[in-house]
């Protein structure tokens, strides 16, 4: 599905650096979810955003949803090797009857 786009596709950063991953839709999102997937494992829920302008933080990860509810960003501060993995955004569409994921952003953090 191309309903959600993510950028960049992959990212390699040095430990301690900040980074941002973006998720964009051409449609209004009724719920935007961020997940992390470690290689070969299942998805772990990070955060959920519903309201335009909403911002949530957990430890060193902050997610924002823009006012139009069409773009979200995930920001990691002072990255660590434990942050490495694939980050996926997902969204409710069609008033919650269907769900789509973005293609994912592969993050590597070099020690």
């Amino acid at each position, binding site marked *: *599905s191309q309903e959600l786009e993510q950028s960049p596709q992959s990212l390699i950063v040095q430990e301690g650096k900040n980074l941002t991953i973006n998720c964009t839709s051409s449609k209004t999102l009724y*719920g935007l979810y961020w997940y992390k997937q470690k290689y070969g494992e299942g998805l772990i829920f990070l955060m959920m955003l519903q309201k335009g302008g909403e911002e949530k933080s957990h430890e060193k990860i902050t997610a924002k949803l823009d006012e139009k509810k069409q773009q979200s960003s995930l920001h990691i501060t002072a990255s660590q090797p434990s942050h490495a993995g694939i980050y996926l955004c997902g969204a409710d569409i069609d008033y919650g009857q*269907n769900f789509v994921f973005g293609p994912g952003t592969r993050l590597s953090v070099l020690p």
Partner: protein
Amino acid sequence: NAGVTQTPKFRVLKTGQSMTLLCAQDMNHEYMYWYRQDPGMGLRLIHYSVGEGTTAKGEVPDGYNVSRLKKQNFLLGLESAAPSQTSVYFCASRGQAAGGQPQHFGDGTRLSIL
């Protein structure tokens, strides 16, 4: 608390064989989903269910069938496996749809079709 459990974890099939993947959740969730994950394609929704006895098609339903006879179980069937169905399959569940509950995922089933 088991959450979402998928069985089996790995399976190798020959083209034309059939099999069923089982997903079980112990959270009394109404909604359940089956996805496949392929390199470069992300997660794509195969089928989903909004409650016991109901199923609906997702983005890539062809070649798969599902059943939700019990609320806690969601079965994914391949009647005649094809090499194009080689993938990692994930099951997920959640309490409700739009309204802000996240999906909880199983650990996946790695399926290879020879």
